């Protein structure tokens, strides 16, 4: 009977700080734990007292990678609280922005953070020497996504133009046409990406869980819709608290959640399982080539679904841009009539469904705030996966077990900075 002792302090190639602890004594599992050790930052507390125009700019700073998603979710919550229904033009431009962020984040994760494990290198850096074409392609695709976000949001990291009830400045038609051309020219890079990911050997492991995402009649939902679960159907986003049920655990600065089962999963795989039918025809073809079929219960496949969603993001951006070019853009009246109220926003950001909720007083000053972040909703599921995976690989060398666990955590694409600011706050 063997002993295994694994301690990964601050797992690398993820956003934020998390640790893995595995302790096996004479063949018996004593500890198997995912810990979050990020410094807490207290956003919900400190947006209180801020004006409704500032809240999205502040909560955007929860996370650099998903700052567009946080901004849009925050704006939705504020608009809902103030009783604002945004124009079709605003909704259209925001839907392009969230596709841009999904593409940007998925390229970063699949190429820079996840792929090195599959080729047996510690990071993308050695690949600059050995596989310069792959690295340059990844950088080119990332630049395309960033430029798309720059055109529609003014800036990729912490976007500038999205504001309450519209945009401070509309994108220029000339820039939109240029980025459209680059999106349609991206096909060879997408094909090469597909070919690369076809060659990667994904660990065989399955654990069925509950999958939660947004769902919409209109499209593969990212920007708006109902909350959907593979176990429990759909519910309006306003019911998010009874579907997330946050709780605290002593070894983690982040909060955990559960719904029908002990844990649930959010993110690309959850969206895929709930909304596969609404992927673009090309994305469906890519899914088939990658051996993906909904429902899929292998969490390691989350990174592979991100490749599918990257293709979908390009197709969907082109479709939405064509709608913009067809309808044209016009300056709109963004004035807001203040009133006291509270509201919820929900956006399916790269790492999964995100909720913001605020209350405002009659002067538009924020009095309450609550944010539930995708990675928090995944922490319990990562833990359950580890517990299920460990007995299956217990006979392997310790280094291999460690790598499997790191790969499992990375597959979730955790964004730990994001995940350390929540809690349940009862609004009165």
């Amino acid at each position: 009977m063997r002993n295994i002792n694994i301690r990964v302090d601050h797992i690398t190639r993820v956003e934020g700080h998390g640790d893995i602890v595995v302790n096996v004594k004479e063949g018996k599992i004593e500890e198997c734990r995912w810990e979050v050790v990020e410094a807490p930052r207290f956003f919900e507390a400190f947006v209180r007292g801020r004006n409704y125009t500032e809240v999205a700019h502040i909560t955007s700073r929860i996370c650099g990678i998903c700052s567009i998603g946080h901004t849009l979710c925050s704006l939705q919550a504020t608009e809902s609280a103030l009783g604002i229904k945004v124009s079709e033009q605003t909704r259209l431009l925001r839907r392009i922005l969230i596709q841009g962020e999904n593409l940007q984040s998925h390229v970063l994760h699949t190429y820079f953070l996840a792929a090195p494990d599959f080729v047996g290198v510690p990071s993308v850096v050695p690949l600059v020497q050995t596989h310069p074409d792959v690295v340059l392609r990844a950088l080119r695709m990332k630049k395309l996504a960033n430029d798309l976000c720059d055109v529609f949001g003014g800036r990729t990291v912490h976007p500038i133009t999205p504001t309450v009830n519209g945009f401070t400045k509309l994108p220029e038609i000339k820039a939109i046409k240029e980025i459209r051309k680059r999106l349609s020219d991206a096909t060879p890079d997408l094909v090469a990406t597909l070919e690369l990911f076809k060659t990667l050997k994904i660990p065989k492991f399955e654990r069925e869980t509950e999958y939660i995402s947004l769902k919409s009649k209109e499209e593969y939902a990212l920007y708006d819709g109902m909350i959907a679960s593979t176990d429990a159907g759909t519910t309006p986003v306003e019911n998010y608290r009874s579907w997330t049920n946050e709780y605290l655990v002593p070894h983690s600065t982040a909060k955990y959640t559960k719904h029908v089962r002990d844990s649930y999963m959010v993110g690309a795989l959850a969206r895929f399982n709930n909304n596969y039918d609404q992927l673009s025809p090309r994305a469906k073809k890519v899914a088939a080539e990658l051996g993906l079929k909904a429902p899929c219960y292998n969490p390691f496949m989350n990174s592979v679904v991100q490749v599918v969603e990257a293709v979908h993001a390009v197709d969907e951006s082109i479709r939405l841009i064509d709608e913009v070019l067809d309808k044209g853009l016009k300056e709109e009246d963004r004035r807001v009539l203040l009133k006291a109220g509270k509201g919820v926003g929900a956006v399916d950001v790269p790492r999964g469904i995100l909720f913001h909720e605020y209350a405002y007083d009659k002067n538009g000053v924020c009095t309450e705030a609550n944010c539930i972040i995708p990675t928090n909703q995944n922490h319990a599921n990562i833990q359950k996966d580890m517990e299920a995976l460990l007995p299956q690989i217990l006979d392997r060398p310790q280094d291999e077990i460690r790598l499997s666990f790191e790969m499992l955590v990375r597959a979730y694409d955790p964004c730990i900075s994001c995940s350390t600011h929540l809690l349940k706050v009862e609004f009165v």
Partner: protein
Amino acid sequence: MKPKIAFFDFACCEGCQLQVVNLEVEMVDLLGAVDIVQFREAMTEKSDDYAIAFVEGSITREKDIPRLKKIREQATILVALGACATIGGVNCLKNFQPADEVRKYVYGDKADWYETFAARPIDAVVPVDYYIHGCPMHKEEFLKVVKSLLLGKKPEIPTYPVCVECKRAGNVCVFELGMKCLGPVTRAGCGAWCPTYRDNCVGCRGLIPDPNTNAEKEVLKKNGLTVEQAIGQFRIFLGYSEVAK
């Protein structure tokens, strides 16, 4: 031999390190000129032998202090990366509420599990050699600073206000559009990023040397803010500085 550089982060969104990854094709050039020996967000390989340390994030916990001091001891040059590190940034908003209340609001009856103290920039704890300002930092400015350091030169950071760059960009002043802007007292270098997209400057690059903040407060008052609201404008990013108190 190529200089060894390392990246570290404390309380922040890691958006400035993301800006480094966002360098895109210049990233390859950067990797040709330096040896990145530690960058947890993007690399598993790791060494504590480095000459230049880039540090992102604010200091918010007792246990951050020894970690930062160790980085300072090792690094010949320490560069603060982004508003959280250079001026404290949005993290300092919490300093204006009682610490216990803040912890209770977010973590309820488990508040004691979560250690925190008033957020501060890294130069409140150790000496900092150079600053790359902004939220997020401008990736071109990052490259410029790295190039200067490689040449053994002192990086040039503007000491004039955002208004200068805003005028140069030909923007309509956002005060004219009814907004309240901190551009007149905020350090330039971003190319008046926000006003160019018709949003007001919130001071993320910190104050210029010898800013006339009283005059700025008067301007904000003239444009309809109360004294309290004018100070509140400074608190979004400049909560650690005197002007916000």
